[in-house]
């Protein structure tokens, strides 16, 4: 399907990944068997009276990129926002049945501290949302919340996080100028830097590239490739080429149900469900 896409940017990235894919194939197979980090067990989710997720049941493995795809309103963002309980912020939402466990801890158990959960499960949003502060203050925000005051620790974190988000070289000379002066793509990478500054284990990305131009998208996707060395990444995307390019596992949702999940290559070349095939081949959605 990629070959049929006219966008040159897509072909560029596909060329990169296919060149390196043979050497990484064995490694990739080994990684696909990595241990389970998130266990989503028969989850029903409600917005008020309407049921948005129906018996979602699958596992997310450690240090892999898992992408959620599906048409608008299929529940993929809702599920993503369940993983760090951002849905708690919306009145009338609840998990009706089932459980979500991260490292065997039920994150909806009353004893769970949501603040601690969100430190361990970082999030990057669809629209880049830097604070109206300096680049430096954006990155250290999470640390300041935890009461870190040591200047050397903060400085070190800023450099490490910005390097981690492939932004350091572009902003090293203007760390103290406003983050709002950055371009859209830089802002989104700053948001990623901000998320990794608190050293989470999991990074959730809710359509992180949907507001970016193709070049900025390539940069963020390359970043995702690097980040999965250290982090478990869950990414929601509308862009199927993107899911194909940067994820190891793909889950296809439709009407609040998980239709199919499997290694990305298999989902895109040989899906076992008719609905999946129809969707990825562009017959609906």
């Amino acid at each position, binding site marked *: 399907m990629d070959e049929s896409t006219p966008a040159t940017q897509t072909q560029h990235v596909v060329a990169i990944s296919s060149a390196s894919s043979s050497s990484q194939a064995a490694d990739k197979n080994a990684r696909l068997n990595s241990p389970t980090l998130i266990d989503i067990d028969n989850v029903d989710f409600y917005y008020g009276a309407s049921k948005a997720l129906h018996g979602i049941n699958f596992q997310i493995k450690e240090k892999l990129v898992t992408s959620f795809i599906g048409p608008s309103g299929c529940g993929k963002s809702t599920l993503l926002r369940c993983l*760090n309980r*951002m849905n708690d*912020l919306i*009145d009338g939402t609840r998990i009706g049945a089932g459980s979500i466990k991260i490292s065997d801890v039920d994150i909806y158990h009353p004893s769970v501290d949501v*603040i*601690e959960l*969100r*430190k361990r499960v*970082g*999030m990057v*949003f669809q*629209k880049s*949302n*830097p*604070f*109206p*502060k300096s680049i430096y203050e954006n990155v250290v*925000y*999470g640390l*300041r*919340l*935890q009461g870190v005051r040591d200047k050397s620790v903060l400085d070190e974190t800023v450099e490490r996080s910005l390097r981690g988000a492939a932004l350091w070289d572009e902003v090293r000379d203007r760390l103290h100028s406003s983050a709002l002066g950055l371009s859209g793509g830089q802002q989104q990478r700053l*948001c990623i830097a*901000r*998320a990794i500054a*608190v050293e989470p284990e999991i990074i959730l990305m809710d359509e992180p590239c949907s507001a970016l131009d193709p070049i900025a998208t390539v940069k963020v996707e390359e970043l995702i490739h690097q980040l999965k060395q250290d982090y478990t990444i869950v990414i929601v995307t509308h862009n199927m080429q993107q899911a194909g390019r940067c994820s190891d596992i793909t889950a296809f949702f439709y009407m609040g149900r998980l239709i199919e999940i499997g290694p990305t290559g298999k989902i895109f070349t040989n899906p076992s469900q008719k609905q999946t095939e129809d969707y990825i081949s562009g017959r609906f959605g």
Partner: protein
Amino acid sequence: MDLSRKLHWRVVFSRIMDGVVALVTLAALVPLVSVIYMVVSRGAGNLRLSMLWQLPPAAGETGGGFGNALVGTLVLVGIGTLVSLPTGVLTAIFLTEYSLGSKSARIIRFCAKILSGLPSILAGVFIFGVLVATTRQFSVIAGGLALGILMLPIIILSTEEALLRVPRFLREASLALGANRTQTVLHITLPAASSTIITGVMLAVARAAGETAPIIFTALFTSYWISSLHEPTASMAVLIYNFSSVPYDNMVNMAWSASFILIIIVLVTNIVSHIVTNRRSK
């Protein structure tokens, strides 16, 4: 293709409307400009610098000033701000950050709106009944509280508006980084809304500085310097009210000069707030 101008009725209508809008705008400026012109021409001309620190003259006397009224107004508005600013901002935070859309929030917002339309004399009468009649003493405190009541709804409503304008995604970003609600309000929402909040507070200050009716019922007036918060005080607005209706030219002129100074005070607070907020947003 013919691209030449033609006189369609919609073009004519548009031109007429342009003219009407411009005329109405000018008409709206007439009262504003004429009031300022009157005050400046009659107030600035008679203004002597010594008026700013001298006490009011007795009837028929020459010279004197309104130093005590100037101090009195600053203290009264200061007390009003001290009372209404924290209460108003915290109420607005409760409305937007802690109970948005809840029944209690709707009731509080409704009350604030009613209160903002309250005739100012009622605030004076209320404090008169609660504080002045019970302690049998007109006082600075009573005057400040009356002004505080008038400032409160303005601050609540404008701060609420300012907080609602802070995009939801900033709050989400903060919460997603492990901030709790208080941290998010302190570090993200309030700073992002601060310039709009300050504008609202300045509006409230300007309104309070010009209020006469509530002060007459609470802080009354005196010809002496303010010495205690439990005694009456002079204020610019009441001085203007008193002196503008006497048959002595000296006092009438002083009322005009006091009006001029009052306008300058409001102007300066506005300019200062603009400078402060501009510096903040950089």
